[in-house]
């Protein structure tokens, strides 16, 4: 009989070990925990007050109250989901622990699953308190979106993981020289996925690119829900289909970059 814990098969035990490792790190450092809550709170307050100001002066925004704040909160799920994934990975490089990890029986798929779990843990620490602050300050209840919120969340977190997996591959291949990608890559999605405005605002040729990105469907879906009170299930299904393709492509790229890192010898040299 094959014992999954000895490395031959996938092991949830090893995934749990890695999650425990990141949890120990997180709880040992209050600045790390504070950082998870700080920026989402600042963003939510800034955009929330801006929306209050605009809605007092423009008829459309008065009707569409909650669009900005909803966009901010959903954008943070996308952005913080990827950061939560990538930062846990970077912690291994900062700690010079990657050699120990890569030499252990931990499989790449187990490592990635542990990073996904930590991305949700970190996101929850940051976003749950902020969602309640949004109710207290602006009367915007993210949780009232119900099943729509589940669809938005699943699609956004899948995109964030796909990007995180691709960045992890770049970090393995190029060392900390690729660190800035972890912090900035998601900002490329900010204008293209139309977080704060409808896709129709973009020039025609750019709309093709926008519709190739899963989060675009989520932000359009959110606006349809908040402004027109319609849940666009079709948009969520299309987002999911694009996510499956994106996730598969990112996983393939990760495995190729890992293979290349073994050929280049960069797993032992993870500095710049």
């Amino acid at each position, binding site marked *: 009989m094959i014992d999954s814990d000895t490395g031959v098969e996938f092991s949830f035990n090893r995934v749990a*070990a890695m999650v425990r490792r990141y949890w120990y790190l997180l709880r040992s450092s209050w600045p790390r925990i504070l950082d998870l809550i700080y920026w989402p709170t600042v963003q939510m307050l800034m955009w929330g007050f801006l929306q209050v100001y605009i809605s007092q002066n423009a008829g459309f925004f008065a009707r569409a109250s909650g669009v900005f704040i909803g966009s901010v909160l959903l954008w943070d799920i996308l952005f913080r989901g990827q950061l939560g994934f990538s930062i846990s990975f970077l912690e291994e490089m900062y*700690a010079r622990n990657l050699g120990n990890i890569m030499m252990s029986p931990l499989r790449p798929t187990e490592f990635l699953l542990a990073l996904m779990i930590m991305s949700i843990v970190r996101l929850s620490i940051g976003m749950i308190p902020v969602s309640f602050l949004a109710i207290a300050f602006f009367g915007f209840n993210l949780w009232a979106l119900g099943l729509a919120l589940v669809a938005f969340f699943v699609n956004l977190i899948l995109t964030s993981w796909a990007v995180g997996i691709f960045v992890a591959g770049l970090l393995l291949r190029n060392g900390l020289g690729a660190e800035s990608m972890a912090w900035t890559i998601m900002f490329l999605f900010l204008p293209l996925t139309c977080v704060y405005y409808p896709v129709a605002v973009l020039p025609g040729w750019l709309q093709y690119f926008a519709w190739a990105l899963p989060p675009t469907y989520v932000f359009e879906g959110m606006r349809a829900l908040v402004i027109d009170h319609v849940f666009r299930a079709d948009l969520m299904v299309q987002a999911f289909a694009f996510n499956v393709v994106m996730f598969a492509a990112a996983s393939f790229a990760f495995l190729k970059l890992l293979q290349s890192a073994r050929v280049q010898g960069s797993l032992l040299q993870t500095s710049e």
Partner: protein
Amino acid sequence: MDAQNTSAIAVDQLVKRYKGVAAVDGISFRLTPGSITGLLGGNGAGKTTTIAMIMGLVTPTSGTVTVLGVRMPEERYRVLHRMNFESPYVDMPMRLTVRQNLSVFAQLYAVKDIDERIGSLAAELDLTEFLDRPTGKLSAGQKTRVSLAKALLNKPEVLLLDEPTASLDPDTADWVRSRLERYRSAQGATVLLASHNMSEVERLCERVIIMKKGHIEDDDTPTRLLSRYGRETLEEVFLDVARGRRHSEAAQ
């Protein structure tokens, strides 16, 4: 049964080139189970690259490596739980306590009865009083002992050590060597030790492989090397090899 399957480690015509430059250039050797072998060589000789290929961290350009009969790196997950390593190029996470670090790695290596194993290793390596201290707060010698504890957690059959006593004071280094000797004789493990420290290799190793510019320059027992080069210490033998003097010239 062929030699590859009976050897703990079998390296055949191993080559690693980086952008056309050979870091390891066609080396071959076999280590018998339970042996302890020193891999000697100056900076850039190819020791770390050789060890990295044995661990499966680096893919060879050509040639083969098998560990306990398993081909690396293709089938590495079939054997990684039976090996372990220690290297100055890696650290344990500094913010985690020694106990947390060891328990995470114990779980990764599927160690049974983790608390008992950590307790016995801590007692053996004189780490008990540091178990609940953050790893980053330890001295260099204490950190080396923690790394050694991590390397021994799964009672590896193959132990790869890359300069295990680098940056340690002579007393601590000697202490580490005695623990390694004890582990090897108690478990019958195969140990491959890359080192710059000649006295360490002389004391621990029953066989010495000397590398230079990616090649194996010599491979024998310490006693036979000393006799062949007509030298008193391995350090002198090493200098002869490093400066290109053959044993026939050196002995004159």
